[in-house]
């Protein structure tokens, strides 16, 4: 084991200065729910751990006309029920209820969940469905990156050495005509999803689909947009006909998941079909209801 230092900045600028100073050897610790495993098992050997536990200003949830801003340190348990105050976060709040277990959700942060970039992450699928973006701050400035651009591969992100993820922005949408939903499948409660599908639909009064987003999780390294399925829906009437079933078929036809000990590739493909239909039906019901 190399010598490892543990630093506890109290402000974002202090944290960024430490990250800049220690470069590649520095790693951020938020809730530690993944970091503790990586460190204890020697899978990573950073020279400096920058704990953001005492960094202030990263725990707020605020809504403006543009959308809801969620601080990176907001814990997953705090997101459960957050849709009471911020209804556009309904799909996120419901999805988080089933993430891991209460022990993990007590300390796991939203920023950590995003940065972990687990291929089976439910959170990144929901955030992609909601067109969310993240703010990255460094000693030399800040930038905003969409979740789709941020998650680059399994366990890989666009975060650069020296950058801290400070907040997530979920854009607002018209709750009277649009809605989002998320469906996941697990074999045992508390497991990572075998497959998860997020959907967003926006309808006009006649049931014609103005906008749609379908995002599939755990069938490749990153959340994957089901463009063919979206194409079947956008601009078409999708209420009271077989459009949603067609979209399920198309989403399934365009994924190529590898099998694992929990589920074969064929099984996952079937799940994509079923979960896409279910999540679309839920979003449509909410958007028309």
């Amino acid at each position, binding site marked *: 084991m190399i010598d490892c230092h543990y630093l506890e900045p109290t402000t974002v600028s202090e944290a960024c200065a430490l990250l800049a100073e220690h470069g590649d050897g520095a790693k951020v610790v938020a809730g530690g729910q993944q970091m*503790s495993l990586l460190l204890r098992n020697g899978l990573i050997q950073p020279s400096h751990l920058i704990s953001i536990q005492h960094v202030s200003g990263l725990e707020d949830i605020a809504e403006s006309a543009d959308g809801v801003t969620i601080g990176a340190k907001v814990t997953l348990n705090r997101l459960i029920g957050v849709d009471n105050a911020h209804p556009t976060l309904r799909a996120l709040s419901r999805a988080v209820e089933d993430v*891991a277990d209460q022990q993990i959700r007590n300390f796991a942060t939203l920023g950590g969940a995003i940065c972990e970039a687990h291929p089976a992450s439910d959170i990144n699928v929901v955030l992609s469905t909601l067109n969310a973006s993240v703010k990255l701050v460094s000693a030399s400035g800040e930038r905003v990156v969409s979740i789709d651009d941020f998650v680059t591969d399994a366990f890989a992100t666009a975060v650069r050495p020296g950058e801290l993820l400070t907040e997530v922005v979920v854009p607002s949408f018209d709750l009277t005509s649009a809605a989002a939903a998320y469906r996941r499948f697990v074999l045992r409660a*508390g497991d990572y999803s075998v497959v998860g599908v997020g959907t967003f639909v926006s309808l006009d009064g006649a049931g014609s689909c103005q906008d749609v987003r379908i995002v599939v999780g755990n069938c490749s390294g990153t959340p994957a947009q089901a463009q063919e399925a979206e194409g079947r829906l956008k601009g078409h009437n999708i209420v009271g006909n077989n459009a949603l079933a067609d979209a399920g078929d198309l989403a399934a036809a365009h994924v190529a998941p590898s099998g694992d000990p929990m589920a074969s590739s064929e099984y996952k493909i079937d799940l994509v079909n079923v979960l896409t239909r279910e999540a679309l039906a839920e979003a449509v019901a909410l958007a028309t209801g």
Partner: protein
Amino acid sequence: MKYPLSLTVNDENYDVLVEPYHTLMDAIRDGIGLTGTKCACEDGRCGTCTVLIDGQLVKSCLMLGLQANGKSVTTIEGMGSPDALHPLQAAFLEHGAVQCGYCTPGMLLTAKQLLDENPSPTEEDVRSAFVGNLCRCGVYTHATEAILSIAEEKEDR
């Protein structure tokens, strides 16, 4: 590089030295020597290492020791003793909710937290509280009965 870690465990203060990569579980078991907190999977899946930090449940293998610096920890040793069992411990014994006993410390802390937050849980509440506590012997039904029996006793009073 070792750092001082100061913890209040079951109302007693402890000062130990830990490496940044040591988990809270390492600090409690190896640093302080309280081995009631069990270690099974070491990767966050089983919940045998569950303790309370400032009243919040945590899997102690999933947190660095230094993250808990200055905090108050409750382990199974703080719940009751062989001479003075916590009511939940007595109920677990009475309902046969212990087989090999490996999951029991974590189960009991989860049960304690559940009743502290919600003194009259439904069966469904109890079962979903155990999502993060695996029992390979399968005592869930008996543990659920034990917890519900305590909740009922409280209601009768």
